[in-house]
Every structure is written in structure tokens, then in C-alpha cells.
């Protein structure tokens, strides 16, 4: 993933569902983002080490490395405090959402989502 010279913001979508990644990509591209995809936290972290994204749309439950572990490791990376991280999960329990925010997530989307919700949350996170 190479940062766009024209200043297009890059969003890394980390989700083990190909369908979710595809839907998210379409929404994000419509909003003007460049998009990269990873199928789990470990793959996502490898992406981030190559080129730190501006935004991460992050699933919680994934094989290999889940979203919380990814977030902790991302924040410990050089430059890893910079990306806005928006969790995007089926978890809708407020205690779990609080846990994600306490861990350093900037925003939280409860699945299922649509374009309006993604736009609203990215705006609240200061990404739009």
C-alpha cells in the first residue's frame, strides 16, 4: 500500500469476511478513500508496518489475531498512534464498546452498517 501523492486518505479494512470487506471498500471508495484489505489482525499489522494507514476499519472477532490484539500492537508500533481506528463489529454490548474505546479505538460501528453510518462515524472520528 503506497500513500497516494494527491493526499487521498488510506483506509485499511481488517475483517475476515470477504463480503464485509467488499461492501466496506465500495462505501469507502465512494467517500474518497483509498482502500487496502486484510483478512485478520496479523495481516493488517503487516500492512501497517509497510505503510501506516490514515484510518483502520477493524473487525473484532477474527482468526489468527483478533481486533483488540491488533489495536494494542498497532498502537505500540512507531507511528501507530496516528491512525484513527474505527471498530466495526457485531458486538453491541456497551461494556464491550467501552472496552474498545478504553483500548484506544476512536469510534465504533455496530454491524450491520450502511454508507450513512460509516460516513457518520468517520466524520465523528475526524476522518472526513
Amino acid at each position: 500500500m503506497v500513500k497516494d501523492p494527491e493526499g487521498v486518505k488510506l483506509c485499511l479494512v481488517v475483517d475476515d469476511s470477504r463480503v464485509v470487506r467488499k461492501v466496506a471498500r465500495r462505501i469507502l471508495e465512494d467517500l474518497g478513500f483509498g482502500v487496502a484489505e486484510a483478512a485478520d489482525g496479523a495481516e493488517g499489522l503487516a500492512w501497517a508496518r509497510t505503510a501506516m494507514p490514515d484510518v483502520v476499519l477493524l473487525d473484532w472477532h477474527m482468526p489468527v489475531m483478533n481486533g483488540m490484539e491488533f489495536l494494542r500492537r498497532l498502537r505500540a508500533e512507531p507511528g501507530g498512534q496516528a491512525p484513527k481506528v474505527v471498530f466495526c463489529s457485531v458486538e453491541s454490548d456497551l461494556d464491550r464498546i467501552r472496552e474498545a474505546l478504553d483500548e484506544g479505538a476512536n469510534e465504533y460501528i455496530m454491524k450491520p452498517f450502511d454508507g450513512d453510518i460509516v460516513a457518520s462515524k468517520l466524520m465523528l472520528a475526524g476522518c472526513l
Partner: protein
Amino acid sequence: MTPQDRALVAELSAERAGLKVDPEKVYLLENRLGPVARREGFASVHDFVCAVRDRDEERLIWAAVEAMSPGETAFFRDPQVFGKIVAEVLPELARRREGGTVRIWCAACGTGQEVYSLAMALEETPPAGVAVEMFASDLSERRLEKAQAGVYSQFEVQRGLSAHRLVRHFEGLEDGFVLSPRLRQMVRWRRVNLMEDLSRLGRFDLILCRNPMGQLTDEARPRLLANLQGALAPGGWLVLGPGDQAPGLNPASDHPAFFSAAVARAAA
């Protein structure tokens, strides 16, 4: 729906609530009246409108009119509006009313997201030295009931509301989220038809009326503006929807939705 059905609904909407309803918009009419017809036990929208026509019952007439009134709203819709209210308007009103009460009215509050957004902002940044009275009204009893309950779906709490505010101000339910009783108790509710005499409501320091202006007939629009201006305390602020104007009030230089009443009028 027959053309006669659509014409009747448009006529009643204009007559009772000043609402501009285009009888040619078949889909819109069917879409809004369908749930009402089902709720009232009719097999079709046509049957429902026939009953509205034949029975001449106020309850049925209002069910049709309320369905045609706009209720679109979201938490913190247009964040700049809330930013200006909290950072500038409320501190100014608090200085003027020091030791007293600032009265706020959300007219046409829909299902309550706007007034609760204000309640959240007030709880997070309370204006110093004044009590705040919040009042919200809508034409639709059903929307007011939902607003008072403070229960919102997963979809609704994700439009405009930050996750930080969600966990701070809401509790989870099996199917949705409920606003904390503390915030719900900050607001008093009443059904109000903005076309009627509003003098019984008293005067307000801040009035938000952000939905209906473009949805009104040409005759109803000036009446609404006159009613709202009449309900505005001297030096008070009126916040309208995008593109709406309030001749007779002073537009704010930094935001097109804000209009202030002359302070000097208080002494007159």
C-alpha cells in the same frame, strides 16, 4: 389510492397543519399512509382515506395529517449548530439570565434526537449560573411517545452520535438502547401544532425549528415564522433549517441558520 384520495390528504394536510403535500407523489403518500392504515386496521390506504372522508373523525384526520408531517431527524445533525449553541449562544444567554432560567424549545422535535443532543451537550458543558428549562414539541403524538421513551434502535444511535456519548448516556436493551433517565427528565413534552396560537407556551430564549419550513405551504410559512418570533424572548435566538430565512430578526454573521431577536425590544 385514487386521485381523489390523494387530493383529500393534501387538502387536509394544508388546512390543518399548513403542510405542503404534492398529490402527484403517489409513492410518498402510499409510503407514509400505509403504516397508519395498517395500524388503524384498514386493508388498504384507499380504505383508510375513505374512512377519513366518510366518518369525519378528528382522530383519523389527524392520523393522516401527522403521517404527512416531516419527522426526519438524527443525533447532533449539523454538528456546527450544536457547537455554536454550546460555545456561544448558551454562554451569552446565561450571562443575560444570570441567577435565573434559560428557556429552550425544540419545535417539531420529531422523535427527540435533537433535543436529547442538546441535553447531552448541556450535561457535558453546563452553562454557569443559570437553570435551563428544555421543552420539546411535535405535531405527532406517536413521535412524542417515542421521544419520551428515549428508546432508539441500533441504526438510530449510529447516526450522528459518537460511541463515547453512546456509552456515557445510554443503557443497552435487548433490542436497542435507552437514554439515561437523568437526560430524559431534563425535557418536558407537549403536542403543539405550530400553526396555532402559541402564546400559551410563554417566551423562549432559544428556539430550534430545523425541519418544517420548506415543507409548508406558501400561506403557512409566514404564519409559522410570525408564531415563532412571537414566542421568542427579547434577545433570544431562533435556529432554522438550512436555507430558511427569518425577516425581522438579525441573521448571525457566522452561521446562516441563526437569527437573533433585538435585545432592545425588551425595554419597548
